[in-house]
């Protein structure tokens, strides 16, 4: 038997901020896609939550990059990224990914102000002073309330949505791409990684909407109750996205383990080490159970569905953690798997994550105060009822 007597513990770069960042961008992309079901594809059943989802996509994406800045060892040198190293544009996904990351929230913002323009104009009439001017700026100076103006809002909103769909897919796809290109890492190195990340993102984004929409419908709209049909629609979507996610994970794991070359031994060892956590928590509890809820009559029970939403959100976060942190725990040239326990205080620590979620909540409140999302939501529901009659 051969034994290692001494070596060093290698330095591992990415901490808890990175899986959190991946979760945020992924959920943002999914919320954008769900809003586009109505804005681009004209699916009326998603219309009442389309505007709200779009705003959620925006806040998630504004909060997400803060994780990245916190994970930098020299955050004061952010400008160096923009000034130097452009010869690596084609070979460093981080280089072009950040460009996408900056373009995407700008696009969502413009789509949102086009969609909400008529509401801004209405709101302006009731306001004066600074607030009046502020909403005037958000309308981009277009005050018309004729059908022609509404059509233009709709047209531009749809166009931005059409551009936004590939952009949203790219913004989250690139995060998978960043990991997928690292051939040094046995767990990450697969062309499936961007697609896998997108599939799990759709699960976490839908789960996030299942968790957050009822709170806002019940407590912050004039409806005062949760719309059952919307929740059922989201439950069906969640189950469908979980199926897609499971299929891609099946492809990933079968190619990474039984049918792989030398790398399979390390991947086997990794999953052996984390077997119970991955199988029972990540797959059974957080994917299979929410899928069963989404496909069965259980989805009609609000409490059960809400719990399924929470589980899917947590499950995808765990998947991000197991991929980013787990991948880095695999030994490369000094034997032995590594164990990561994040610091409580410091950069990329548990406090950083809580702070980031705090910023997200603050941004949600801020954006929802500015945008008359509640009015739009209630109006969409009443239109749907009238249409149904």
């Amino acid at each position: 038997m051969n034994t290692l007597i001494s070596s060093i513990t290698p330095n591992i770069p990415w901490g808890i901020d990175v899986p959190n960042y991946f979760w945020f961008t992924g959920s943002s992309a999914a919320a954008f896609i769900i809003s586009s079901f109505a804005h681009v594809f004209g699916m009326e059943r998603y219309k009442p939550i389309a505007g709200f989802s779009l705003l959620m996509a925006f806040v998630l994406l504004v909060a997400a990059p803060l994780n990245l800045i916190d994970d930098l060892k020299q955050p004061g040198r952010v400008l160096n990224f923009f000034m130097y190293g452009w010869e690596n544009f084609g070979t460093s996904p981080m280089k072009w990914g950040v460009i996408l990351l900056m373009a995407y929230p700008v696009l969502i913002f413009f789509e949102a102000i086009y969609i909400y323009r008529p509401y801004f104009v209405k709101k302006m009439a009731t306001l004066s002073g600074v607030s009046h001017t502020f909403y005037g700026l958000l309308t981009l100076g277009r005050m018309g309330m004729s059908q022609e103006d509404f059509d233009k809002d709709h047209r531009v909103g749809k166009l931005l949505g059409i551009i936004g769909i590939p952009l949203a897919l790219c913004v989250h796809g690139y995060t998978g791409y960043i990991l997928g290109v690292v051939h040094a890492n046995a767990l990450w190195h697969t062309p499936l990684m961007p697609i896998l990340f997108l599939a799990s993102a759709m699960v976490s984004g839908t789960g996030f909407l299942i968790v957050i929409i009822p709170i806002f419908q019940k407590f912050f709209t004039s409806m005062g109750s949760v719309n059952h049909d919307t929740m059922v629609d989201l439950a069906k979507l969640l189950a469908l996205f979980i199926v897609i996610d499971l299929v891609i994970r099946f492809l990933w794991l079968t190619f990474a383990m039984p049918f792989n070359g030398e790398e399979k031994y390390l991947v086997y060892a990794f999953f052996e080490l984390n077997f119970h956590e991955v199988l029972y928590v990540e797959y059974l509890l957080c994917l299979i159970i929410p899928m069963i809820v989404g496909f069965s009559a259980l989805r009609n029970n609000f409490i059960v569905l809400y719990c399924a939403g929470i589980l899917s959100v947590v499950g995808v976060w765990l998947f991000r953690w197991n991929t980013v942190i787990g991948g880095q725990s695999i030994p490369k040239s000094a034997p032995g798997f590594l164990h990561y326990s994040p610091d409580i205080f410091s950069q990329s620590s548990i406090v950083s994550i809580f702070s980031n979620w705090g910023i997200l909540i603050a941004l949600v409140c801020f954006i929802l105060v500015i945008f008359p999302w509640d009015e739009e939501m209630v109006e969409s529901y009443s239109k749907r009822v009238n249409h149904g009659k």
Partner: protein
Amino acid sequence: MSEKNSRRSFLRQGFGIAALSGLAATSASALSLQNPGRDAGEMRYVGDKNKHLVMVMDLRKCIGCQACTAACKVENKVPTSQYRTFVLETEIGEFPDVRKGFLPQLCNHCDNPSCVSVCPTGATFKRKDGVVVVDNTICWGCGYCLSACPYDKRYFNTKTKTADKCNFCVQRVDQGLLPACVETCVGGARVFGDMNDKTSEVYHLLHTFSTTVLKPEQGNKPQVFYIGLDNKINELLNSTQSLDDMVKKHDGIHAEWSKTLIKEM
């Protein structure tokens, strides 16, 4: 009137041209495909384009004394608990057929370095003589190069808070000296030199002995070559944990990233 007009248009055009050229000059100096040091063609950034610097490790001569590890730390002021080079110590076989095996490791100064291509700031790059270096005044510490290195030979320097690694002691090599680890190696296991020089020892060794590199399947084309590398050591790299780690665990020595205890694979 027309004179006034022409003067005004002249001034307008003049200001326009001045503003545009000013903008162009600013952006030309501010935006760079590489980084300012390389753009200026400084010797320490560019190196000697006629050389191809490599290292040969003659494992038959390594006795695992760690003199290289110590010399490197002193020469390069490497922080405590961090290493640019070290010697892995193994036990191969079972009593009574047992022997020690050593594997000195450092940055492989790959011909096709995966750490360089992913760097988003151009802080890490390959010099013309093949040495892969990091400009720690540019690096923003994103850690992508640390992930991309198949050999785990990069770390975040706790003093500079940037990516750091072996630089073949270019500060010495550019003055005509040898890297600190090579100069101190008691057994003469580490040999350093210019592959393009047919009279050099590395040229002689590489053309006389069969050599191999670590993880050739990664496609990085490492430029640190080993004579007498036993595949048993290579296999070890991906398998067991070290006795050292078990002792650290037993003594409760904690770090953000530490070794995990698992059963033998």
